[in-house]
């Protein structure tokens, strides 16, 4: 069985004119990128516009693409930058200054996910999505990049322009708040 090409190989092949390589790359990442943008903007029209723009930038960058990092890190960096533009254009630049203190984290409510919610997958998913939407944007972004982009702390830090510890902190806040919201909801 032939080895599946990596994202980077596909992007390089696309750079050499192989349109099928791009199709493979697109189908591999279209869902995660779209959901990342949809969850961040909470507006399907905006998400579609940003999604298309991100992929067009990938298309336009095909000649300049060099393997310096994972393809996903590079692509989500583009997505993050487009989101920043969107936030700035809509007066939501406070996204950049939404760090919480370690003390606040200590006091954050944690908890177990209720058993009945675990059994009802559909309801649990709805509750989780509602909880994600209530997260501060920076924490939500870190969570989504980890879940949708399957990115490490370093990769998230690189894509969002912060240090590793900040990402770690954001994720811990996000988990705690999500659990707390799900526990309350039950």
């Amino acid at each position, binding site marked *: 069985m032939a080895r599946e090409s990596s994202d980077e190989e596909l992007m390089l092949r696309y750079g050499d004119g192989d*349109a099928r390589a791009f199709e493979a790359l697109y189908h591999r990442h279209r869902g995660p990128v779209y959901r990342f943008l949809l969850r961040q903007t909470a507006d399907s029209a905006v998400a*579609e516009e940003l999604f298309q723009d991100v992929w067009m930038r990938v*298309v336009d960058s*095909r000649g300049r693409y060099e393997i310096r990092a994972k393809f996903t890190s590079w692509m989500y960096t583009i997505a993050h930058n487009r989101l920043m533009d969107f936030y700035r254009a809509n007066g939501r630049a406070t996204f950049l200054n939404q760090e919480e203190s370690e003390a606040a984290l200590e006091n954050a409510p944690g908890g177990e996910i209720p058993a009945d919610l675990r059994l009802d997958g559909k309801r649990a998913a709805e509750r989780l999505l509602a909880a994600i939407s209530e997260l501060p944007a920076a924490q939500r972004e870190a969570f989504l990049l980890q879940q949708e982009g399957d990115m490490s*702390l370093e990769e998230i830090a690189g894509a969002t322009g912060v240090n590793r510890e900040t990402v770690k902190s954001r994720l811990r806040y996000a988990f705690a708040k*999500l659990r707390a919201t799900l526990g309350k909801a039950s």
Partner: protein
Amino acid sequence: MNEPRDQELSRLYRETVTLEPPQRIDDAVLAASRRTAGSRPRPVRAGLVRRLSAPMALAATVLLTFTVTLMVFQDAPEADKAQTGMRAGGADSRAEKPVPAEANSARAPQAESRRDAPSTQPREATDALGKRQGLQESQESQEPRRARESEPTRAARAMQAAPYPRAGSRQEAPSDLQGAGVVGAFAGRSAADESKERSPEKWLEDIRKLKTQGKTPEAERELAEFKKRYPEYRLPEDLR
């Protein structure tokens, strides 16, 4: 690694991942990607060319400079030779340089009074003539290029060098110092040979001398030869 990852939340989240972009967005993106893929080659090669362009330009400049320098040095001996020739030619042209008409007319009374009070000018003129002849000889030996020139070319040059005498002004006869010896030598040569060496002015002076000496047939023959050779030359009144 100590990365925070909540497996239970991740499992729950995976159940939500059903949303996907609309088909029309897929179509638009893929169409754009196909258009771009077929439109141009990967510019990484262009990047390679771009990276190499500066060294290539430098190498081309060095090569060009070297070639030009080499050509200059190779041409230098020829240029020196040509310069020497030009210097000689310059002296020649200075000797052949036509006397301006104003100077001719200014000199006319001086020449008329020459017999009474001979000045140094005729001697200088003779010296210049001698120099010129010497230069002509040396030039003929040193400059094969000039020797290769066709007769019409040289005649045309002589025509250019020779001023048309101003109406009313008299072309002076040769000085006394040019005397009979010169004329005698002239008479012994063929007209063709003479015409190669003499300027039109000199030729006319010789014709005048022949007339003065009473050698009218010879003078007429020379004059006819002169007219044949320089049909455009405006003859002085005394020879018309």
